[in-house]
């Protein structure tokens, strides 16, 4: 089983979100980057579990700059075999997906796994775009993934429920909660990952289709109105007359 896991960097979930240059770019000051949780907890860990039972090889790939190598080392520490970086700023989902597709094209991966979305841009776009570029089936939002020969059996989330589906390898899968449990790398893994060779691949020429031109922060709420626990009729009246939501 030859598996490619796409990973992205994302700001640590406790990061303060702020913007600079007239609200046109994310303020990275003091921000710690982590592997995007969906990519790490679900896609990568499930790939490693499959490798452990079926044999094979897990390659992680990211589109990013040299400073992003820490997330690649984290993925190696957790257990990935190889790490590839496409040397470019990931300009938008399309640009990123086309880079990964260009790399994967002639490598005959059985599975290409992505997280269901990143926690910074939340687009849920890259997986489907890779699948289209490679003309492979795409199963989105899978919460379970098992392999039987060349058949992939998946559970995927649908509105208010789940579906069980099957598809033959090769395929692209976006991975959501339920697929695996987070793994904490051990000291040996971390030490070994430090000195591992990282593969750096030049980017292909692709024009991005979208750009973020501006950011904004939500206006903070005015003070919370406190209501006595013995006066739920008042709360109901406020929700009806003042907030007008019921």
């Amino acid at each position: 089983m030859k598996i490619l896991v796409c990973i992205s960097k994302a700001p640590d979930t406790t990061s303060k979100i702020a913007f600079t240059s007239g609200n046109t770019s994310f303020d990275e000051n003091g921000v710690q980057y982590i592997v995007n949780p969906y990519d790490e907890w679900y896609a990568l860990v499930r790939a490693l579990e499959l490798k452990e039972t079926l044999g094979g090889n897990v390659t992680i790939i990211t589109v990013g700059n040299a400073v992003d190598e820490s997330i690649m080392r984290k993925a190696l520490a957790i257990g990935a075999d190889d790490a590839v970086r496409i040397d470019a700023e990931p300009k938008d989902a399309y640009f990123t997906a086309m880079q990964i597709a260009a790399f994967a094209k002639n490598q005959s991966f059985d599975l290409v796994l992505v997280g269901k979305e990143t926690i910074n841009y939340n687009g849920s776009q890259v997986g489907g775009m890779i699948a289209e570029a490679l003309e492979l089936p795409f199963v989105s939002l899978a919460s379970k993934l098992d392999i039987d020969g060349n058949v992939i059996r998946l559970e995927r989330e649908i509105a208010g429920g789940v579906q069980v589906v099957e598809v033959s390898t090769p395929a692209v899968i976006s991975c959501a909660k339920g697929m695996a449990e987070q793994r904490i790398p051990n000291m040996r893994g971390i030490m070994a990952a430090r000195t591992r060779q990282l593969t750096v691949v030049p980017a292909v020429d692709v024009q991005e289709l979208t750009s973020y031109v501006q950011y904004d922060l939500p206006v903070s709420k005015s003070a919370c109105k406190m209501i006595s626990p013995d006066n739920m009729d008042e709360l109901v009246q406020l929700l009806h007359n003042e907030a007008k939501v019921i």
Partner: protein
Amino acid sequence: MTLVYIHSENGLSKAAKEVVTYAKKLGDGVSVITNGNTTGDVLAELGEYGASSVMVDRSVSSDDHQQLLDLVVFAAEKTGATSIVFSHDLTAKAIAPRLSVRLNAGLVSGATDVPNESGAIRVNVFSGKAFGFVKVNSTKQIISLLPNSIQPEITGGACGVEEINSGASTGRIKLITTKKPEGEIPLPEAELVVSAGRGLKGPENWGMVEDLAKSLGAATACSRPVADIGWRPHHEHVGQTGVAIRPNLYIAAGISGAIQHLAGVNGSKVIVVINTDQEAPFFKAADYGVVGDAFEVLPKLTEAIRKFKAGQN
């Protein structure tokens, strides 16, 4: 021309009316493509929200995303649409990215507004902690609209409905079974949500959460640890690593209001927090707060809602 894809199983959902209203606001004329079993008479009502025509291909299955993709591509070619609009649901997540590559059209996922003066579209970023404004650089664009971002508006009368056969071929993904609990309101589309956290102490206490939800006609949700320990199903987990929602009303009981939880719910119009601890961070993000024991407050609130509803009838 703007093309809209909607689901139309068993009638028209609010999300369907929202996307047609949204497409109408883009100002280019609106065609709708759909599949499913909703009758022509009902589909014609989409004209009231701005559609000038509806095409329906009854042979296409909503479970087959590859076939749906072909259907939308067929309709896009037929109408010469330069904008294609979806509701930002699971179908859109499965097919819009593919469509983006197929048509070389920039994709804006989870739009929360119509394009502004400079043509940029607002979306939630950083899991709801901020907004981003996205510009599409290509001549064609695809937009998926976050449910409950705009209200459906009636602007006209019924439109024509055409039965078509797109010839979309079946995909390579085989459906084995569907498990769908009956009668629940899907969380991402819900306008009212009642949510609870670890403060509820155990799954056996969720009856009072469900009672309150039922009295309001609300969907139920939970914090992450509650889904992780298996007290509630995963699809109820809201927050940065769960479902992001933006209902009109979010009632949170026994949830501390950690930053990762707030990320997924702070788009809610009105937030009510019930917590024993007056220092709970959630009160800072709330519109209305009740310092009290959820075990007492939830049944009282349910009672008050029932009384209010009875008085309205």
